[in-house]
């Protein structure tokens, strides 16, 4: 009797435990996502009139009115930072997604035959043998800078590691029985790619995309900071930080401190969202 009861309890526990875990994950996810979305949407809502120059409020240190202070033109740094985070987010999203797509396409290409595989491996080695930042500078130099240069540059430099993972995965899949059967049944390659490969590697692509995103954002701000990326009119974090360099010796620490901190916050937030999403889709 006792034993049975205990087993029943255990079963109950095992049934309820993941559920409660899951609801915690969902709660966390909702909380994180709402903060995240609030930042992103506010970036869209803020118009140019919010970051207009206001000479009567120049160089103010942080206060309740201006939580991040104001700059030498009296622009509110909080609004500029939000706008900048929005730009960073868009660039990061676009570039990381493009990288993931490139990774998938190249991995499929490598699976076609031995020579293509060699070619792709060679390309991975090639792109990993030059420092990321140097390649990025070269590409944005060639494309003449700007938003286009940054996005293409980041997309073209961040695919190698993910391609390696996806390539290994597809190589393993190729030998799977159901893929063999599909091939014997005369299914076309494109069918196998669409029905077998893609669904299988989709979670990995998603995780890879989430891991790439912070890299993309950080590299975007770095390359913009160096002067290769977005143009000075755009309120990107890299631009804000580069401008703040001129006012450091005058003691305007808030110009650099808060925007940088916000960028770290955005990256950390995205990381947390990604981790919880992963837990949500794959509880084990």
């Amino acid at each position: 009797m006792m034993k049975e009861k205990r087993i029943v309890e255990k079963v109950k526990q095992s049934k309820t435990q993941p559920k409660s875990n899951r609801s915690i994950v969902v709660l966390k996810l909702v909380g994180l996502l709402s903060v995240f979305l609030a930042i992103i949407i506010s970036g869209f809502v803020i118009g140019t009139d919010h970051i207009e120059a206001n000479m009567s409020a120049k160089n103010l240190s942080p206060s309740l009115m201006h939580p991040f202070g104001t700059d030498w033109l009296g622009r509110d740094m909080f609004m500029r930072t939000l706008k900048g985070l929005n730009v960073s987010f868009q660039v990061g999203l676009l570039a990381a997604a493009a990288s993931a797509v490139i990774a998938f396409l190249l991995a499929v290409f490598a699976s076609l035959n031995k020579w293509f595989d060699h070619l792709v491996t060679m390309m991975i080695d090639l792109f990993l043998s030059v420092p990321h930042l140097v390649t990025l500078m070269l590409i944005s130099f060639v494309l003449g800078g700007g938003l286009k240069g940054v996005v293409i540059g980041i997309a073209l430099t961040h695919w190698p590691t993910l391609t390696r993972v996806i390539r290994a995965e597809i190589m393993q899949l190729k030998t799977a029985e159901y893929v063999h059967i599909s091939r014997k049944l005369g299914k076309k390659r494109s069918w196998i790619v669409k029905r077998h490969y893609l669904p299988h590697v989709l979670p990995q692509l998603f995780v890879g995309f989430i891991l790439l995103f912070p890299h993309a954002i950080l590299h975007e701000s770095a390359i913009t900071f160096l002067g290769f990326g977005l143009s000075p009119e755009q309120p990107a974090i890299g631009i804000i930080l580069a401008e703040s360099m001129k006012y450091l010796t005058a003691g305007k620490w808030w110009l650099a401190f808060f925007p940088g901190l916000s960028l770290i916050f955005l990256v950390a937030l995205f990381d947390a969202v990604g981790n919880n999403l992963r837990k949500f889709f794959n509880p084990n």
Partner: protein
Amino acid sequence: MQISQLIKTIMLRMIKFFSILIMVIVLSFTLVSFSPVDPIQSYLGAEMMVVSETQKEQIAEYYGLHEPKLKQFFKWFSTFVQGDFGVSLLYRQDVLTVIKERFSPSFWLMSFSWTLSGVVGYVLGAIAGMNEGKMVDRVIKTYSFILASTPAFWIGILFLIIFSVWLGLFPIGLGAPVGMLKADVTWFDRLKHIVLPALTLSVVGGANIILHTRQKMIETLNSEFIRFARAKGEYGFTLFWRHGFRNTLLPAVSVHFATFGELFGGAVLVEQVFSYPGLGQALVQAGLHNDVPLLLGIVVFSTAFVFIGNLMADILYTVIDRRIKPGETV
């Protein structure tokens, strides 16, 4: 046996390196030749308005700008492999001379910070790994996760604000005091100027080595011989010194060598923040002012730099560590 194995590994790597180097050269030349930059304009600079059309035509003729791209490439490539990288448009000097001159401050900067981040990162990682799950571990782990998502140049700016502007301990930037002859600059001056950039770079580079050492230490501590050592009554520092240290040091050094690419990229950013006159700054200037010969030269140089790091990592992995048999991959 060991030596021949070492030589074989190095030879194979060299062959691979040269093939990749050639590809890097071809690819970057192709990329640059598609850029919208007008070569005559970047050659003349501000003189563009003064020089007449016929003279421009003559310059184009002299440099073979009307020839097909392929012919241009082979012409350039044949001088390039002979060690003539061309003349930098910005510095009006041989590219190789510029690189040599600029690399030496960068070299000191990178070696200081690389060593510092290696030692501090290893120690922190080892402490975290030995105390897995405890408070210390969690603090160190959080620290390195935050570092991993922090832009290098922002840390540089923070250090500038705190140590130079507020505390006045270090100079704001540059590699030597302003208005001093090169011969008069003392070692102490140089040291004072290198501390902040090196510190910034080492803080940024620490995250990777901390997390890796921590992981390796936890793995090591879970093995049989550690359980036996613990059964004998070893704990704490003795346990670390006799077993943990020996098993985690080599992988850590190896991983640290493999981060040369990140190190170079970090140095570019840090040099920009501190106006430190190194190779990274020259690269940024070359890119912003369309100095193609210097840009290509530094791209090739950085490839070689990353290769040396990877080669060291490989040698440490496959040859010095005898437990890894030839042909086995890690």
